[in-house]
């Protein structure tokens, strides 16, 4: 199972600032291992963010997003105490969902 991510959501003046750190290798598919074999690409493909049942943001990642990805976005309409839920899916169909309360 994939490792948990760190989600932080802060509301300020009606805008929620969300910062997400994900644990993922984001293997490019360009690197070779010690024996010269290509390490297959393994990376997050999509990430969705929902708040109060509504999707507020979506990202698509290629292999060029850095290892242990960081993402920061902002949306309107969330209030302190609401929950922001983040889900990512990778190209091996592994997925992970974590939540944070807006502070």
């Amino acid at each position, binding site marked *: 199972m994939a490792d*948990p991510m760190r989600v932080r959501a802060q509301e300020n003046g009606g805008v929620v600032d969300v*910062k997400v750190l994900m644990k993922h290798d984001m293997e490019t598919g360009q690197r070779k291992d010690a024996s010269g074999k290509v390490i297959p690409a393994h990376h997050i493909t999509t990430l969705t963010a929902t708040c109060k049942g509504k999707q507020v943001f979506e990202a698509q990642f290629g292999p060029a997003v850095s290892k242990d990805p960081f993402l920061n976005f902002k949306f309107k309409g969330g209030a302190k105490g609401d929950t922001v839920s983040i889900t990512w899916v990778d190209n091996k169909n592994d997925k992970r969902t974590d939540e944070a309360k807006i502070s």
Partner: protein
Amino acid sequence: MKTIMKSALLVSLSAMAGLALAQSATDDIAKYREMIADGNPSELYEAAGEDIWQKPMGPKNATLQKCDLGKGPGVVKGAAAELPRYFKDTNKVQDLESRIITCMEKLQGYDPKEIISAGFEKGKRKDVEAVVAYVVTHSKGMKINVPNKHPKEKEMFAMGEKAFYFQGGPMDFSCASCHGEDGKRIRLQDLPNITTQKGAALGFGYWPAYRVSSGNFWTMQRRLNDCYRQQRFPEPIYISDVTIALSVYMGVKANGGEMNTPGLKR
């Protein structure tokens, strides 16, 4: 006369331009570091480490919650700012990693030899590294206060100092080759002068760290291991005397400085 003046001026101007170029490059690097400071992936390791600390594991199915890191059983806050130190129960000076391994052995029943021979990020060593991330986070902002009173601590400090200056290998390098003077750089990386309090605190206070170039969390043991690799030395054994001695030397020199761990490094 005029032309001589002119060319002299030109020379000094171009020398200044050269300086300015290097200066602006290091300023830009500082900006880069600032930009990535928010969102240190060390947090991911810290979270894993906290879980490992609290979870019953090993042959004895016990947690690490009674582990004594020097400030009493279970006390995590501030522990990393005072390590390495002498421990009565093992009659040894231990750094954070060797002490965690002692706890894994005594409380949980793990075999320390396996952890020592495992390699970084391998097997149970991976858990040690995560616990390190968890523990050092709880010393962030605290004053470095590594003891140098017990005769064994003094012995280790002396060994660390000698090891720091020990020059060898095909490139004649010692730690001091890179870390013995102020204001030096390798490429664009600033090299703290570890022989001074300020420089030692820049080293000791920012490691362990998440290392951007390799995309993983490096403990102090791993930092030292890679220094020795670049020094073209043979490999220091994990938690061996020389590695702990160097930590004592650096930590004691750094006393009074601030813990900023876990850091975020190139």
